[in-house]
């Protein structure tokens, strides 16, 4: 496995060949008869209607929290606690957002979230790719053991390491500091695994040609391999960014100044500070949720592909 390079070599031992090619475009037909699946066949009309009669209500349940979040955020404070509840935001108002911005440093929280998520994303792009490149391409003593060690750290629940990690961050003077949130997340297993998988499937000719032309190891990696790995890098980037933006437990532990919080931690704090003002809380939730929803809608393909590739870890 460690020395296998070409895609063909890697395909043979896998039970589900089509999913081992990293980052196939969504729904791309796979060149085996086995992959045709059932989707080509026409479904009887009645069967389809029953299917939709199940799927549509489930979609309503899935999207309901967002609808109710936005509706409540747009409903005037007094109307939110009326019976019957305001199901349609007919007298929509931005008053909740205005009072939220006036009473809580939401923009600062958004900025902190953005800064943390960007830093962690950049860390993953650089360090995960470097390690993935080494595991995919380089020969070195102890490679197998190192890779096993790193992958098996997935099985360690983060909660086991919380206390010592907090003591460490404290000793480093990074408690109540954005860097204290960033540092323990600067690399991760998922990214290393995904980059390794992808880089193994790349042809080696370009790298060899660059070496002949006198490029050093770093140049080969940064100028040749990284540009070729753009689809995998995009997936790693998106997953890291969203994960870091949504993280809650660790930022909750490290950050304590009101001005240093991230959006999830800040919004959770709102429900304590303004427990009777539900519209204001929902306005905060909308501000925290909308950026990731937009990101998902734009980069949908990368999300679904990343989930599929991630599954191969198991």
């Amino acid at each position, binding site marked *: 496995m460690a020395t296998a390079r070409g895609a063909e070599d890697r395909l043979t031992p896998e*039970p589900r*060949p089509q999913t081992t090619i990293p980052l196939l475009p969504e*729904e791309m037909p796979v060149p085996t008869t*086995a*992959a045709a*699946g*059932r*989707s*080509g066949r026409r*479904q009887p009309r009645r069967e*389809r209607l029953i299917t939709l009669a199940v*799927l549509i209500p*489930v*979609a309503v*349940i*899935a999207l309901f929290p*967002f609808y109710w979040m936005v509706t*409540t955020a747009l409903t005037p404070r007094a109307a*939110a606690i*009326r*019976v019957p*509840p305001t199901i349609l935001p007919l007298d929509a108002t931005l008053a909740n957002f205005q009072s939220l911005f006036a009473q809580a440093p939401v923009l600062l929280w958004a900025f902190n979230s953005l800064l943390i998520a960007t830093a962690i994303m950049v860390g993953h792009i650089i360090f995960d790719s*470097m*390690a993935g490149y080494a595991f995919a391409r380089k*020969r*070195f*003593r102890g*490679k197998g053991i*190192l890779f096993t*060690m790193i992958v098996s*750290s997935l099985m*360690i*629940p983060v*909660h*086991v*390491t*919380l*206390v*010592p990690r*907090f*003591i460490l961050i404290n000793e480093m003077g990074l408690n109540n500091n954005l860097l204290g949130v960033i540092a*323990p997340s600067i*690399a991760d297993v998922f990214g290393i695994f995904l980059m390794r998988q992808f880089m193994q499937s790349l042809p080696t000719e370009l790298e060899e040609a660059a*070496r002949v032309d006198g490029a*050093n*190891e770093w140049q080969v*990696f940064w100028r040749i391999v990284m540009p070729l790995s753009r689809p995998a890098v995009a997936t790693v980037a998106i997953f890291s960014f*969203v994960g870091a933006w*949504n993280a*809650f*437990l660790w930022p909750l532990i490290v950050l304590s100044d009101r001005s240093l919080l991230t959006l999830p*931690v800040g*919004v959770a704090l709102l*429900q304590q500070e303004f427990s009777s003002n539900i519209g204001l809380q929902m306005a905060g*939730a909308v501000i925290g949720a909308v950026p990731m*929803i937009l990101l998902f809608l734009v980069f*949908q393909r990368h999300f679904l592909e990343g*989930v599929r590739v991630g*599954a191969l870890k*198991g």
Partner: protein
Amino acid sequence: MSATGTTIAPTPRRPGRLSRFWQLNGAGYLFVLPSLIFFTIFIFIPLGWSFVLSFQEFGFRGSTFIGLDNYVGLLNDPIFRQSAVNTVIFSVFTVAVWVLVSMALATLIHPLPQRVRTFFRAAYYLPAVTSAVFIALVWKWVLNANPWGLANYGLSLFGLGPVGFISDPSPFLGANVALWSVILSSVLTIPAVGVVLYSAALSAIPQELYEAAESEGAGAFAKFRYVTVPLLKPVTLYVTVIYTIAAFEVFERVYVMTGGGPGYATHTIVYLIWRTGFRFSEYGLASAQAFILFMVIATISVLQFRALRSDVEY
């Protein structure tokens, strides 16, 4: 061999084995080094440290070694026991529903035209890119005990309620009302990752198997029961394991919806770890709790792999 190798290699006065070793292995080591430092500092060292801490009592004058006292104390601690029982009840129901629902949804989506499929998958995936904090905040608002809470308003239309969904610790169906409400909110969150993974696996099932089943007179249900379900077993295993781990580590939902209350009615293990470690600064005790969680999760994962391991080939 490599440009970096020659520039970094030791001085030519000692062209010994070390320098040749470095020439062969150096580049690989340099590329994994950042990640390796990261994993060592933030995962491997904390893991061992946490193990040591779990045999200590953390006090104002530093730590004292107390042997197994933390562990023994926990086994006799009614709060720890309740947290463990709550976590198990939460996990069993949530995982069962999530696995069944994701398999059913993927199967229903599969035969649809591609555009429709993409729409449903996106709709189901949205909650997964949103921080659990925001979704839980909406559920807290929906389930509040007042007559204007959406759930209680719905009940009142049938002449029922009001029910203190998340504020009522009274016993109900083997647990308590508040815990069931938290479970309800989880179960109603669509298991998006499972849907994506099952979808990928479904498109890998050879069409001929269904044709063969049809020629032997199998109906839609028989085909699902005797072809689809057995062939999806590897995915079922993977999905069950990742969802079990996720359910055992539930935190945000409890933190936001109930704060572990009323009393200890909705305490879960990770919530308890957080409180013990970061509210009461009992580092040793929190480490022991985390290690018990670690052992339980590891044991369950192994058992699930044993029980569901399959040698499906097609």
